């Protein structure tokens, strides 16, 4: 396991403490890239030796920040290095875009937040327990990632119930709603691409993410070609018989092609 945690401002003092507590609870071997070692270069050098990468600290839509907060440890230019790996984060906003891009490039699991992660210092323990919970139950109890995200959200619910302070409840609820876990069986429900958004609305996330540009283009070509051919055939029939509505073998062929196309589509082949 590769554990990355920059430490350079008041907020990172907390996340640094949290990742240390997480590693302590996991009792697993890990390579630390902490404080000044939390750099892009060190990540790129180390990542191939690890199947799980844990990152605790600042992030934004694009990437996860390195020590000092001026560059990224992980962004869209090097996230392909996470192909086939698990990336578990406690960082703001990365789940909106950077995390999705990482998942699209083949990361096995992306655990992230699609909004700012917020907490209070006087109920810090509750927030830390919830942030750390997912990885702990996957490693120690062997639950699947899909189960883990459900259980982690329930853990947030328990913390909301346990919290005596209203302000704490607000931000626990906020963080719970921001938590996402992208896996093959649990793909992102959103996309920055408008066409993908449309596909998600039409077919659901699981099917929509299986659509590739080439397949969509092939489908469009097929539909347009089908329309042209059908129109041309109907016109020829009209010229010969004075009506386009006539029982012709050509029409039966068109119906069979349409049925075949629909069957292929329903079988997720298109």
């Amino acid at each position, binding site marked *: 396991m590769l554990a990355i945690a920059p430490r350079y401002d*008041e*907020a990172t003092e907390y996340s640094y403490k949290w990742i240390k507590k997480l590693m302590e609870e996991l009792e697993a071997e890990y390579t630390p890239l902490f404080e000044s070692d939390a750099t892009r270069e060190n990540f790129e050098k180390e990542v191939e030796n690890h199947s799980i990468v844990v990152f605790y600290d600042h992030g934004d839509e694009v990437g996860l920040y390195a020590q000092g907060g001026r560059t990224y440890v992980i962004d869209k230019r090097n996230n392909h290095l996470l192909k086939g790996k698990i990336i578990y984060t406690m960082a*703001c906003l990365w789940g909106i875009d950077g995390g999705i891009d990482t998942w699209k490039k083949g990361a096995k699991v992306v655990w992230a937040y699609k909004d700012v992660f*917020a*907490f209070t210092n*006087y109920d810090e323990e509750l927030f830390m327990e919830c942030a750390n919970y997912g990885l702990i139950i996957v490693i120690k109890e062997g639950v699947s990632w899909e189960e883990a995200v459900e259980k982690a959200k329930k853990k947030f*619910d328990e913390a909301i119930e346990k919290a005596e302070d209203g302000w704490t409840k607000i931000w626990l*609820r906020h963080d719970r*709603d921001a938590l996402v876990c992208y896996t093959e069986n649990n793909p992102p429900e959103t996309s920055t691409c408008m066409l993908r958004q449309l596909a998600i609305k039409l077919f659901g996330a699981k099917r929509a993410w299986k659509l590739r540009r080439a397949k969509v283009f092939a489908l469009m070509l097929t539909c347009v070609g089908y329309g042209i051919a059908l129109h041309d055939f109907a016109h020829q029939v009209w010229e010969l018989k004075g009506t386009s509505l006539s029982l012709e073998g050509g029409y039966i062929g068109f119906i069979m092609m349409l049925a075949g196309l629909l069957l292929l589509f329903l079988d997720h082949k298109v």
Partner: protein
Amino acid sequence: MSEEIYRVVKEYIKSRNSGWRFIFGGQVFDKNKLLEKMEKDKKFRKFIIEEVIKTAVDLLTPKK
């Protein structure tokens, strides 16, 4: 209604002690900084009010 929520939130924050901190991503607020931010930044104020409402709705929604 929003004004009433904002008034209550302000009262709540004012009643915190000096060691109270609210960490919002990279920003760390003590009670005075947070009150100042909410007073100056209308968007942020609106966001806080929305979060209060969402939480109220969530707390009143029966859990499965």
